[in-house]
């Protein structure tokens, strides 16, 4: 197997909820003991529904939200143990593109400022001329033009804004980018262009992606590895080709089956889930999925399943895996 760029070990983010000063503190385990490794130059997809903790996971591992436990190891260094000064280098190496391009770009700043700001911080002593050249280069790389530098975000369409957000990330020469639902606000024809651009830039710049999404069809198009998240926990992870062709967890099977397929000639039996996604504040006992699982047995209500290895690199957290 190829070398890992990132190792995430037992990552935890618990939020304390307190309704009033007299009530007991309740804990939301948004990210609960998550472990996975991202191989270099791969696209690792994290999929899950709302409330699964996928966005919190992406932000916690970049330390945009302070983790409550666990480690993120890059080349033997646990980045959470670094001082702020030492961590700066990792800020540059690890970038993020947010979901909503309408809120993630400063409306009163020129595109050139939006993209150039980071360089002034991370590349000390860089000249204006060089910044300008670099911005020009990345704009072209993401499919925009030089003159776009002198415009404001409102002058761009959603797809173009997402390109700007991506340019802002790659201008710092990162190794790793978290893409948090980068195309979910876009129309399909625009989405196709952005996905293609992401794929090409990854190849050209030797990038590694963590792709957070709820859309499994995009995962199939883009990802090499996939982790399925349910109420803060990874229920299945492995190579995308393994997980998608032979899902081992009933939840993965359900997700794959629920995704509507744009092909009227493909008839398949639909699996309809029982009930709704439980609240992460008070997750079900035992296996968290047991309330909606069609194979659930008594054991699932009582005991939390442990991770099992189905084959090399394919891990499932289920008492009765499908394979």
């Amino acid at each position, binding site marked *: 197997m190829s070398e890992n760029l990132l190792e995430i070990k037992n990552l935890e983010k618990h939020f304390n909820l307190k309704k009033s000063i007299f009530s007991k503190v309740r804990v939301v385990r948004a990210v609960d003991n998550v472990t996975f490794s991202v191989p270099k130059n791969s696209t690792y997809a994290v999929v899950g529904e709302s409330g699964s903790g996928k966005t919190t996971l992406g932000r916690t591992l970049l330390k945009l939200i302070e983790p409550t436990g666990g480690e993120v190891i890059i080349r033997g260094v646990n980045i959470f143990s670094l001082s702020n000064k030492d961590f700066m280098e990792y800020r540059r190496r690890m970038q993020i593109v947010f979901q909503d391009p309408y809120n993630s770009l400063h409306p009163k700043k020129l595109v050139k400022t939006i993209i150039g700001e980071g360089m002034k911080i991370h590349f000390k002593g860089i000249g204006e001329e060089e910044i300008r050249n670099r911005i020009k280069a990345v704009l072209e790389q993401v499919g925009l033009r030089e003159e776009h530098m002198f415009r404001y975000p409102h002058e761009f369409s959603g797809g173009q804004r997402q390109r700007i957000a991506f340019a802002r990330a790659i201008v710092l020469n990162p190794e790793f980018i978290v893409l948090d639902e980068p195309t979910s606000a876009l129309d*399909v024809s625009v989405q196709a262009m952005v996905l293609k651009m992401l794929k090409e830039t990854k190849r050209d710049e030797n990038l590694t992606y963590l792709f957070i999404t709820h859309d499994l069809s995009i995962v*199939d198009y883009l990802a090499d590895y996939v982790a399925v998240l349910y109420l803060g926990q990874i229920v299945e992870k492995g190579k995308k080709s393994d997980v998608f062709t032979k899902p081992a967890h009933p939840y993965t099977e359900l997700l794959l089956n629920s995704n*509507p397929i744009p*092909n009227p000639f493909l008839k398949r039996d639909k699996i309809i*889930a029982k009930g709704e996604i439980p609240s992460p504040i008070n997750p079900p006992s035992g296996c968290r999925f047991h309330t909606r699982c069609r194979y659930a047995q008594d054991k699932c209500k009582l005991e939390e399943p442990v991770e099992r290895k189905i084959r090399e690199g394919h891990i499932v957290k289920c008492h009765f895996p499908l394979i």
Partner: protein
Amino acid sequence: MMNKRGNLLNVSDLHVVFYTYRGVIKALNGVELWMNKGERLGIVGETGCGKSVTSRAVMDLIEEPGKILSGSVVFEDRDILKLKEAEVRKIRGNEISMIFQEPKSSLNPVMNVGFQIAEVLGKVNNKSIKSQYKAAAEMLEFVGLDSERVMSMYPHELSGGMAQRVMIAMGLAPKPKLLIADEPTSALDVTIQAQILELLDDLVEKLGNAVMMITHDMGVVAEFCNKILVMYAGNSAEYASTEKLFKKPLHPYTTGLLKAVPQIGRTDELKAITGTVPDLVDPPSGCRFHKRCPQTMEICKKERPPFIEVEEDHYVACHLYSQKGGENK
């Protein structure tokens, strides 16, 4: 005018504009569509193509600053646009009803669910709201909710999936002949989306009403609808049965759209449509798609292509298939 292509609804040459400070938005530019009883029509297209405006125009619900300039919306044998408001009200919410994308923001936040459904039934049956509570409870059971619990709940207590079930209960309560569903599952998670689509499928099967489903999701139409209308920039671009449209799309826009949709198990490269959706304040001349079309011809810049039947029950608005286009090829 070619009328009566469907026995339930015939929309022809519908023009809608919106007056804004930027100028006049030509939102609908001669939309054509028709539906038969019990049919499920999916209207697909990207943001701003006019699919939602079309559905609202069908119920004569275009409000200021919008205006229906011309065209007709013939429901059975009545032209809704020519009827008096009082007469339209008898059709709206009764013979034609609607469910919306954001179920929670479409429900009244200060009224409980039971009241809201009973209110609909009261209006429809011309009875007091109080007398309709029992029927409202039945409707909730019909959509798979526990009526005892849900009747007294307020919208903020409902999850997204439950709220959409309540909307469906309200929409189907008057036993409409046509249900318009505007992106009914777009705000929901996939597993919940599957539940809601299954429910709609089941209920519509039982009630036998027609459904106009507005969506941007090709997967949803493929699974739910038997007819599809593709819209582009305020025009009807292509209309056919679901099978025909997916098997043999004729309009270059439809072809492009189908190639741009990612699909599980699909290995070929995604193909994007170049360019962006035009600004409808100043739409392109001739065919509104000509600037993005890979097969554009001279005539496309000048003349608007007619919406014609190219094969049996397969309509398309494209010069590639019209007489004039054929000569120029």
